[in-house]
């Protein structure tokens, strides 16, 4: 059942990307498309926004990271936040996307498509060569049992062990290996609870928080604490590898910036409160 849902989400992804730009479609893909059309007939705003932002994710040169979207970016594009939350919840349950809690600031969440996350995980595992080859089975068990069944952002130690033991005998060393490879992190308040994390994302998160501060100070320095969006877009941030469009969406969604219509165009203003 888990595999079929995986292929279904893969089919959904494939058919959408086909419809986006590929002119010469295979007979195979066309038939797949026609079968899957009933899944694709109705889109939600959230799904479209996710696709669009994934396409606009900046190209990073130093680190290879698959595209992820912040939750606050979704809030900036789709008007109704409650609907975004509910759509995200159903996408999570269908295992199309995965949500991670980030440690930058309060209530930051990152959303990543399931196949992107799995690819990222593969890269991380390949890069991290385990000293003990027996223990590296745990990565397969993790992928097969834990990711598929647990759709939350965190997991408790007993539950992790019970899910992993579906694959084989699990010891502390296995869990340590998972943490060292960057797939899990201990929570600060409670040692028995773990967060799921996107591996190899640390430098980008640092860039995220510094970029936010830089953008806010940029607007703060202007006389009236506002700036025309067209001018703002052309600037480059020194401290963050992510582009400015990413940060603008994020800050508007979290309420620190607001947009104002004016005769010149859209203005970005620092919101006071």
């Amino acid at each position, binding site marked *: 059942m888990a595999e079929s849902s995986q292929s279904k989400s893969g089919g959904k992804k494939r058919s959408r990307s086909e419809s986006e730009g590929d002119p010469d479609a295979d007979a195979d893909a066309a038939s797949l498309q026609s079968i899957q059309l009933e899944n694709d007939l109705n889109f939600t705003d959230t799904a479209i926004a996710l696709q669009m932002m994934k396409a606009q994710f900046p190209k990073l040169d130093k680190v290879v990271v698959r595209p992820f979207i912040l939750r606050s970016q979704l809030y900036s594009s789709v008007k109704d936040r*409650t609907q975004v939350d509910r759509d995200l919840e159903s996408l999570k349950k269908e295992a199309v996307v995965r949500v991670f809690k980030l440690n930058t600031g309060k209530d930051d969440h990152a959303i990543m498509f399931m196949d992107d996350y799995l690819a990222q995980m593969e890269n991380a595992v390949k890069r991290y060569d385990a000293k003990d080859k027996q223990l590296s089975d745990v990565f397969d068990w993790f992928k097969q049992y834990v990711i598929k069944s647990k759709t939350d952002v965190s997991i408790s130690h007993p539950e992790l062990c*019970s899910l992993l033991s579906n694959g084989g005998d699990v010891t502390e060393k296995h869990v340590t290996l998972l943490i060292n490879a960057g797939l899990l992190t201990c929570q600060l308040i409670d040692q028995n609870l773990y967060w799921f994390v996107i591996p190899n994302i640390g430098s980008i998160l640092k860039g995220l928080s510094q970029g936010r501060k830089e953008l806010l100070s940029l607007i703060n320095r202007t006389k009236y604490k506002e700036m025309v969006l067209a001018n703002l877009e052309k600037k480059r941030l020194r401290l963050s590898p992510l582009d400015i469009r990413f940060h603008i969406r994020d800050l508007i969604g979290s309420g620190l910036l607001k947009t104002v219509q004016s005769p010149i165009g859209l203005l970005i203003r620092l919101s006071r409160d």
Partner: protein
Amino acid sequence: MGLRKQVMIVLARASCNELGRLLKNQGRSDMRPREGQARPAQPNKHFVWSRVGFVFRLVCSSRLRRGGREELYMWTWKALNQREDGSLRPSAFRRGVVSSRASSLQLSNAKEFISLHRGAINSLEIDSTEGEGRYLLSAASDGTVAVFDTHRPTSSSSSSSSSTSIAQHHPLFHLPRAHKFAISRALWYPIDTGLFITASFDHYVKLWDTNSTQVVLDYKLPAKVYGIAMSSIATSHSLIATATADVQVRLCDLASGAFAHTLSGHRDGVMSLEWSSSTEFVLITGGCDGAIRFWDIRRPGTFLLLDQSLSQLGTRPSLLPTPTPSNNESTSLPASSKSSSSTPILPAQKRRSHKKIQLKPPTQSSHPGMASSQNRATAHYGAVNGLRATADGFYLLSSGSDSRLRLWDIESGRNTLVNYEAMSIQTSKPIQLAVTPDSSLVFVPCMASLKAYDLWSGTTINTYRGHYESVNCCFFNAQDQELYTGSNDRQILVWSPSIPAATQIEEADSKGGITSIDQDNWSD
């Protein structure tokens, strides 16, 4: 032009005062038969309503900036007509007027409270006696308590700029040294205003007699008290639930003067608590560990723990059975199966041949309630610093220091995923939320302003900016549809429904819409 405008403004203001009085009388005189009064009232009523009608036609014909207000006025005008010919019931009319007043609050220019507190105001409460919520009890960080009369002003000051005078309410009494340290909460006794209860950071909960302002009873608690609550629907018990920095919630009995029992299960201090508004035995507590627990005080232990990852799509629980989450620690357990929650952990342990995993042994004590202390489900990512149940007892609002406000469906115990737009909630103190009795608006103190959100969709209806520093508490007076807020700047501000027509005419004037009013055959 100027004179005509001024005359119209005066006329409009007078008509609206008349309208306000008319509406108040309308609500109160529903029960009285109208046949006897029909004749003499007729000419008066028509005169008033013709003036009112003129004003409303005026207002609706001019271009209004806020479209929503225009619809509100159109509704009120139509509703008056319908009420007159009997097609709208008095209760429906009253509900509509009350909700329109509640959504149009502004800083009051007719009423103010002169607060003698010299510290941040932490708690505001109006007594809940039947039909007359009149006395406002306020408590501050300097250990002082004051009571105000909201109906009768003590004096009035006339300001030179406007012709209206501001009614000033001085405190009926002000206790300068009620507690040694800051008072975190002050409550009226739910039955009448003869007693009130205060809780403070000096570890004491004191019961006061209002008339003599003397302490009748006091309870010493082991840690500083963040909040207290008494059930307003309780008939068989008179327990004060106290939330302290200690992990246990203590219930103090008024009748005997001693502690009744303690509820343990929280992992960290308890910051906020609330009795259920539908059952007298259910207590809801929110802790610094982010968990919200439901306790039935007749039996030990938590019977429900709210988990933010369990959600339902929609504000009513779904009729189809939802797949239960795969985790072993189920969150909503009836009392009989609580002991079974510890057993699923054991087979997993047996499956492993290596004994290297140090699993926390299932709890030693045998009573079923303790099993839920293993449950780490959190309702918020930070401390839960405000709880408020809706008046019908179906939903619970909780605010956390992760700056989120969540709406929970109490019956199913799930997160309804309503997203209340960006807010920033102060993290160190418990705050007091307010909900209108018809469950349409929720008022949340966000730093130096107060925001009003629509309860079901989460959109911001209004932001009330008037305080200079962080707002700590707010109370919605359902009788008069007024909002009282207290903040760190030692002020209590009153927000009352705004008088609509005068402001609208002045706005219309500035936009040049006055010409259309002129065209509205007001020829002389």
